[in-house]
């Protein structure tokens, strides 16, 4: 025991008080569990098919490191400006905050990050040195672009063969400009090309580009997408005035103004149908969407359906065309039959069942069919590959590494069997393919890293959060919006974006909120010069309050290494 400083009653202070540092007492020796900082996975990262590291780029935004935040997104997705506008954001469906008040508007923040760096055209740094190998990519849609980008970053010589006059695939020819302005698309494609990717336009494989040219490459990625509209197979489909939604959109997005009647009917319930309907509104038509199930089963992005409604698109649910009636070879009306919902089909949605004797007529001067798209794999016929490449349901068979059966030939996106028909999945497929090609060419093994422990809603310490409204981006007034193809959604301002980032729980990622430090009863947590937390294990008693209080489950209590001697420096070693 330390010697008393005061020997008499009169000298003693009013109460027991220390006059020197008490640090010599190594209370850390009392510990049997120790707190450590851990990085766990947030559900949004798992939810994002491209695997964007959302909590990490959010943390960079909090530190106002806008360019670094942008480049953090770019590690996994080269098209954040595009995706912030058109993605169906499954990340938000996984967001833990959805169970507290509303999910973080991740897509709007991603858009902000891209828009904020719009004038930055400095390419991403290469991850590896330049290589000798050459890779051919067929198709410059999101999948092809993603693959080209990831390969170019790893030093490969990439050539994209694009059949159309401009790159982008459905991003340019499918999605209308009021959803995705061309300058945004062009900028991000430009960023990819600036890595040294060669782009050949008007290059149709099987026509002006031979397979022997392709075969000379060290690997090939087929990303031709699904651009052929399914036929209805209904009598009268060949009448004038009836065309596919995809064709209609391609014409508009190529800069032309299609001739059309003022009474437009769109058949279908997916994004193409909505795009066609909203585009028609902008060309002055009255539009009705005819869909054989109900609104709840529509595969289109819900926000798009709402926008269509706001813009005055009419909806006729539980109805399907059975015959087109024309006059002088032009369509005039559609004979429509009512449907009822029966048992679920393969997609899990309830199957529409025709209701007998329920036919009625609706007028239509222009009919746009948008009941789904399929790949056009005719390019394969001029190769010997059609014999060897397996197809299933009209798509190229691939495994989870985008490998077809043929060594060196990879496929992905809508043209292959493992997409989900969305842009973000196409981007994921492109990245997968790049990594698989990288391994195939002998450079680096693909690591199938299992996701770390995912933080669930119950792990969040809600005491540190209050309910707040989700951010809403500005938008053009509806009446204004339908006058042109100007972008409707205006996105978030900087302050809105930062406030929305602050709403994020940051599941599993430390954001230096200092709660652990503030609560430690032993004052055993401090910050080093770099601002990182340091635990003084000589004095940490292992009470676990820091771990319990951490609002975002970014700490853990792990078993103490050794029940060693008191105050020993050995007990400071971190376990591996």
């Amino acid at each position, binding site marked *: *025991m330390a010697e*008393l400083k005061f020997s*008499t*009653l009169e000298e*003693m202070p009013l*109460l*027991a008080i*220390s006059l020197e540092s008490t640090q010599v007492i190594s209370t850390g020796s009392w510990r049997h569990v120790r707190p450590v900082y851990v990085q766990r996975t947030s559900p949004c990262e798992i939810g994002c098919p491209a695997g964007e590291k959302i909590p990490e780029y959010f943390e960079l935004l909090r530190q106002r490191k806008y360019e670094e935040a942008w480049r953090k997104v770019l590690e996994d997705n080269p098209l954040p400006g595009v995706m912030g506008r058109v993605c169906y954001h499954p990340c938000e469906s996984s967001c833990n905050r959805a169970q507290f008040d509303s999910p973080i508007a991740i897509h709007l923040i991603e858009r902000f990050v891209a828009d904020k760096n719009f004038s930055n055209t400095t390419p991403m740094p290469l991850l590896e040195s330049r290589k000798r190998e050459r890779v051919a990519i067929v198709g410059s849609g999101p999948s092809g672009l993603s693959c080209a980008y990831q390969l170019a970053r790893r030093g490969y010589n990439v050539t994209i063969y694009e059949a159309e006059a401009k790159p982008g695939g459905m991003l340019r020819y499918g999605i209308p400009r009021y959803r995705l302005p061309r300058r945004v698309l062009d900028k991000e494609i430009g960023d990819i090309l600036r890595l040294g990717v060669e782009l050949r336009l008007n290059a149709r494989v099987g026509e002006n580009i031979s397979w022997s040219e392709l075969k000379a490459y060290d690997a090939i990625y087929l990303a031709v997408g699904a651009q052929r509209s399914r036929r209805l197979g209904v009598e009268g489909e060949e009448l004038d005035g009836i065309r596919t939604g995809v064709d209609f959109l391609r014409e508009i997005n190529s800069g032309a103004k299609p001739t059309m009647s003022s009474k437009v009917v769109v058949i279908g319930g997916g994004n193409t149908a909505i795009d066609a309907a909203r585009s028609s509104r902008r060309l002055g038509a009255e539009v009705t969407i005819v869909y054989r199930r109900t609104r709840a089963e529509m595969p289109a992005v819900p926000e798009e359906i709402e926008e269509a409604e706001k813009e005055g698109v009419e909806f006729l649910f539980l109805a399907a065309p059975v015959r087109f009636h024309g006059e002088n070879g032009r369509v005039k009306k559609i004979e429509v039959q009512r449907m009822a919902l029966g048992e679920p089909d393969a997609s899990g949605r309830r199957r529409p069942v025709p209701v007998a004797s329920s036919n009625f007529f609706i007028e239509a001067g222009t009919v746009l069919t948008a009941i789904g798209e399929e790949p056009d794999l005719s390019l394969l016929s001029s190769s010997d590959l059609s014999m060897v490449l397996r197809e299933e349901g009209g798509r190229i068979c691939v495994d989870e590494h985008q490998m077809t059966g043929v060594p060196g030939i990879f496929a992905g996106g809508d043209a292959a069997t493992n997409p989900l028909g969305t842009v973000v999945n196409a981007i994921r497929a492109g990245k997968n393919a790049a990594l698989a090609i990288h391994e195939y060419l002998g450079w680096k093994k693909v690591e199938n890293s299992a996701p770390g422990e995912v933080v669930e809603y119950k792990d969040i310490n809600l005491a540190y959060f209050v309910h707040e409204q989700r951010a809403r981006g500005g938008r053009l007034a509806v009446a204004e919006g339908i006058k042109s193809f100007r972008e409707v959604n205006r996105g978030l301002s900087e302050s809105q974006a930062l406030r929305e980032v602050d709403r994020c729980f940051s599941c599993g990622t430390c954001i230096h909120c200092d709660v652990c430090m503030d609560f430690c009863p032993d004052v055993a947590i401090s910050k080093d010069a770099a601002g990182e937390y340091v635990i003084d294990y000589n004095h940490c008693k292992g009470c676990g309050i820091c771990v319990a209080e951490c609002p975002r489950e970014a700490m853990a209590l792990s078993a103490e290494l050794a029940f060693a001697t008191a105050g020993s420096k050995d007990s400071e070693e971190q376990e591996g």
Partner: protein
Amino acid sequence: MIEGSHASSYAVELARVQVISAYPITPQTGVVEKLSEIVASKKLNARFIKVESEHSAMAACIGASAAGARAFTATSSQGLALMHELLHWAAGSRLPIVMVNVNRAMAPPWSIYADQTDSLSQRDTGWMQFYCESNQEVLDTVLQAYKIAESVYLPCMINLDAFFLSHTSEPVALPKQSLVDEFLPPYDPPFRLDPDNPHAFGGLVGPDGYMELRYKIHQAMEEARVKIKEVDDEYGEKFGRSYGGLVEGYETDDSEIVLATAGTAASTARIVVDDLRARGSPVGLLKIRAFRPFPVDEVRSLARHVKKIGVLDRNFSFGATGIFYQEIKAALYNAEHRPPVFGFVVGLGGRDITPAVIEELFDHLMKNNVPESESIWIGLKHKPA
């Protein structure tokens, strides 16, 4: 017209308390409810810390007081018992926390009614203790308590009977804030938790030092005897009301038989004393205001000229006797004059102490010269013989 619980709340507001932390328990709830309104309306600039138990409430007050803030809490019976270990801590840390305790019976059986066993069970913790007989006295005593506590550096509890005071409205005069500010300056302790001047408080002290530190607490309690009287006199001069310091002798100067008690029973006893005196009986009342420090001198001084002392205990210590009875006998043991002392146990668990009951006690005192037992339980419901 204010009920006793609210009289406490207004006193806390006037005292410019800075931290309040309490847990609700009948019949203290009015104290904290009123305070939460006062704080929410910003009439009082205080931090109101909600906690999940009385133990935490006292812990919060200890932390706040140690950091130099004027702190307050309120509780009753079970809640006070839950705080027990920290009552020792507050006194040992020399923190001038003031607490209002509504005297309520200890369970089981569950009871919410008036009984003093709760606070008297805490007599050894080092807290000063006052017992009030009116809502005005509650308000005045809370204000006096901060001044006394912050002078001797000991915590203080102020007791009032459940329902008889806590929930009964009486006329109460609220002093002016400016006068209170003159009377009670801001709290400014010599030691406080301060990151710029760090110390560890209350650490391990071995047998070579503990006793001296404890002696200092004893010294502080002895100082409090003087201080309590001083502050009461000062309060009387400033606000026009005082309560006699540690005790008040009512008609005791020329009485032969005196009943000693504390709490609302004292106010009822006054009426009985007046009535009996009018009929010729030489009786008086010793109202015990401070229980800790115990008014030994005052009791001895009374004993010099009275013939018999009766003690009305609205409490009991099992295995012994009523507690005021024990303390009064102990005070007299070494005194020169030791009249017989009778211990009456009355009104436990809120059983009403009517004037008739008190008259019965005086009657007993007049008719008996020697107590027939160490605790005479009054009003028990016996089976008819």
